[in-house]
């Protein structure tokens, strides 16, 4: 294996592709009729998404009693899945905004896809909060500030309320940011297409973009500002999600490290999901020279780093549970390890902390099948992390006489599996209607595009 030459800038793409060939390969899925494989895929995910719909209808008729929640475990899969999906979304903003601010040019190949996944993940997450209120049509009204005819005001001092604003702001800004990046690409699509209706649609969407120097100047400026906006927003979202738990006095929930730990965990799971989806996409659409092994390896490194941060937080929580000298707190942690949900706890620890350590080895980091499996493992682990936090703390709280176990029903699973179906349905539609790699941006980072390449 050749060792790295530190004195030269590593190439971000392979084989010095020409601008025309880049357009060709990225736009091809948009211009061709979907393959059989795609139809099989979307029938499968679409079916799962239908389960989601059926569940929602049944939920609206019967109420949240169809789930396995009880007292004291009044939060079950709803919150677990909400936090899980919100977390998945974080990698997209990290890649598109934070890595942009850090001038990480390798982000260009994967930013579009990751950003799309952010939006889909938030769209999957939001229904869980809305529907877990039971009579969600009433909740939808309560959540808006409205004249106080009922004498009931939204509780603005509750982080659950902040969540609504944080998530909706985040979704809005992510959408705008994503769309902004798409504008030049819509113009390219507009100029290329021969299809009449497509031409009209792309013309409207491209907002009169003419690739002029002035356009680019404005674009760059707005892009930077939006990246600056998105960065605190994305951090605030998972910070506030962590507040949902940490402001309480429940053992296992109230701990000060939660905000950064949740953010790290969110990025961790999000990268796992982006990596998984990209591994498949680059293969099927022949993007291997644009989304290279280098990209995948960097993502795996970030997973190793954030996974280790999560491990640090677990260790710190555990240490302070002992050091703090609060018997309830130390019981909670022992209960997690040895109690009825020990299997969930150990799944979480092994999937989130132990298995990702395999990414220390370059061989594993650069092996497609192994990294794919590890990505799946990470997401299983991160789902279980939320399960452990929500369920173990609630089911064994201060009053032993009211201890209850949580047993999910088939509707709980239906809601979760349905959301997975919804997510991948959106991903599958996305890859067929929009360019999955930013056309304009990737051209700027291929070898030969930079002025210094022409010495």
């Amino acid at each position, binding site marked *: 294996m050749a060792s790295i030459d*530190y004195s030269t800038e590593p190439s971000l793409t392979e084989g010095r592709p020409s601008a025309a060939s880049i357009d060709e390969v990225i736009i091809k899925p948009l211009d061709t009729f979907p393959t059989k494989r795609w139809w099989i895929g979307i029938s499968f995910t679409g079916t799962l998404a239908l389960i989601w719909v059926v569940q929602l209808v049944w939920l609206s008729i019967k109420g949240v009693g169809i789930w396995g929640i009880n007292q004291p475990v009044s939060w079950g899969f709803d919150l677990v899945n909400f936090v899980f999906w919100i977390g998945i979304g974080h990698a997209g903003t990290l890649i598109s905004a934070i890595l942009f601010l850090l001038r990480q040019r390798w982000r260009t190949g994967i930013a579009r896809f990751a950003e799309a996944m952010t939006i889909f993940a938030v769209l999957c997450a939001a229904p869980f909060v809305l529907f877990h209120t039971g009579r969600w049509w009433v909740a939808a009204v309560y959540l808006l500030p409205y004249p106080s005819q009922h004498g009931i005001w939204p509780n603005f001092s509750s982080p659950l309320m902040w969540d609504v604003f944080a998530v909706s702001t985040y979704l809005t800004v992510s959408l705008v940011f994503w769309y902004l990046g798409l504008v030049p690409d819509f113009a390219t699509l507009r100029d290329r297409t021969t299809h009449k209706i497509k031409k009209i649609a792309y013309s409207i969407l491209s907002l009169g973009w003419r690739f002029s120097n002035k356009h680019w100047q404005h674009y760059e400026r707005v892009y930077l500002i939006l990246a600056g906006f998105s960065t605190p927003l994305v951090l605030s979202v998972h910070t506030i999600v962590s507040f949902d738990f*940490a*402001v309480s006095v429940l053992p296992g929930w109230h701990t000060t*490290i939660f905000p950064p730990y949740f953010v790290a965990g969110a990025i961790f799971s999000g990268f796992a999901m982006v990596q998984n989806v990209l591994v498949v996409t680059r293969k099927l659409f022949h993007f291997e020279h644009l989304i290279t092994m280098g990209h995948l390896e960097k993502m795996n490194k970030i997973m190793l780093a954030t996974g280790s941060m999560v491990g640090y937080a677990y260790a*710190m929580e555990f240490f302070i549970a002992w050091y703090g000298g609060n018997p309830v707190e130390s019981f909670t942690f022992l209960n997690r390890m040895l109690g009825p949900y020990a299997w969930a706890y150990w799944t979480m620890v092994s999937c989130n902390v132990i298995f990702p350590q395999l990414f220390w080895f370059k061989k594993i980091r650069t092996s497609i099948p192994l990294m794919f499996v590890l990505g799946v493992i990470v997401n299983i682990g991160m789902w279980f992390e939320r399960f452990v936090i929500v369920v173990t703390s609630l089911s064994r709280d201060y009053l032993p006489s009211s201890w209850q176990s949580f047993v999910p029903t088939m509707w709980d699973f239906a809601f979760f599996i349905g959301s997975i179906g919804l997510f991948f349905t959106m991903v599958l539609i996305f890859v067929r209607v929009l360019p999955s790699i930013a056309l304009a941006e990737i051209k700027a980072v291929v070898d030969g595009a930079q002025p210094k390449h022409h010495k």
Partner: protein
Amino acid sequence: MSETHTSFEYQKQPLPAKWQTIGWTCIAIGVALAALSYFGDRPRMLFNDLIGLTFLMSVAVGAIFFVALEYFVGAVWSTPFRRVTEFLGAILPYATVLALPIVAYAHDVFHWTHHDVVMADEILRGKASYLNMKFFTGRFISVLLVWFVYYSIVTYNSYKQDKTQDQKHTRLNVKLSTIFIPLFAISITMFSVDWIMSLEPHWFSTMFGVYYFSGTALTSLAVITFFVVTLGERGYFSFKITPDHYYSFGAFLFAFTCFWAYIAFCQFLLIWYANIPEETFWYMARWKGGWEYVGVLLILVRFWIPFFALSSRSSKMNLKRLKTMSVWIAASHFIDLYWLIMPTHYKTVSLGWQEFVFPIISFGIIVLVFFNEAKKKNLVPIGDPKLQRGIDFRL
């Protein structure tokens, strides 16, 4: 090996001899005053010593962290300035000296060293297996060893590369830094828990290690920025520093200012909101007896002013602004540590000349160590393969 280095002209210049004089004068005055303070009010001197220790450790260990970080993430923009960071890491052994009086008179500082108190207190009895002098010093020594061993090997390789220009040194340092980063996370947490959090042995916060780390990184970065700008203005670097380089330092300072504020705010908010007496007493002690003013001042000085002063793009490239803010931020770390440490000893704010002794000593040590390091070693890592790329760095 790359051909870029042959074209790089570098001539080592001695730093102004004035620096040495300033350094020694500060140390001499500081030590004399510290002695006076010691005979006047020993515990007070020791608590101030602790502030000095945690400050200097922040500068030194933060610098070591940034050396590691550069190798770890493969950054190039900071490579031309890495020597500044490496020089500051050399403060480590001198900072350790400040720990000796505290270890010698631990009774005056650490409540948990009093056996009778611990035995009478159920909570402290539970912690005795962690908070005892033997384990405490053992942890301190091992933490120092981790830092020192990593620092020595990495800088040795880095200096050696000046002559050999061999990339194998970079390769080795990348490996070492990768191993060091997780060890650093554990060690700085231990250090902050032991030396600051355990001052109030009943209090606990899982965030505390991160809190101290955020302050450490910010302070060290401020000192690095100060030296880079000061030396850069006077042309010590023998290559053209572009606004893009300065911008990166400014942006980094801005980011870490926000990070510190984020961590500080989250820690406070969660404890305030949950309102559990086991945790709130720590903040309560800092909300009376005049400490509330220090706390508010801290928010203003350490967050709002740097936040606005470094917000705009032009201010990040403004050398005067950068220099002022880097001194400002470093000084604000003293306020932070004062606010963290002193309320344990004084229920009401007491600010006298004693509080300024260790800032003076710290300043002297930083300047002097930097001067001595720069006398011996090249200010620019001329053999580093990433040097040319770093010089060519553009936003």
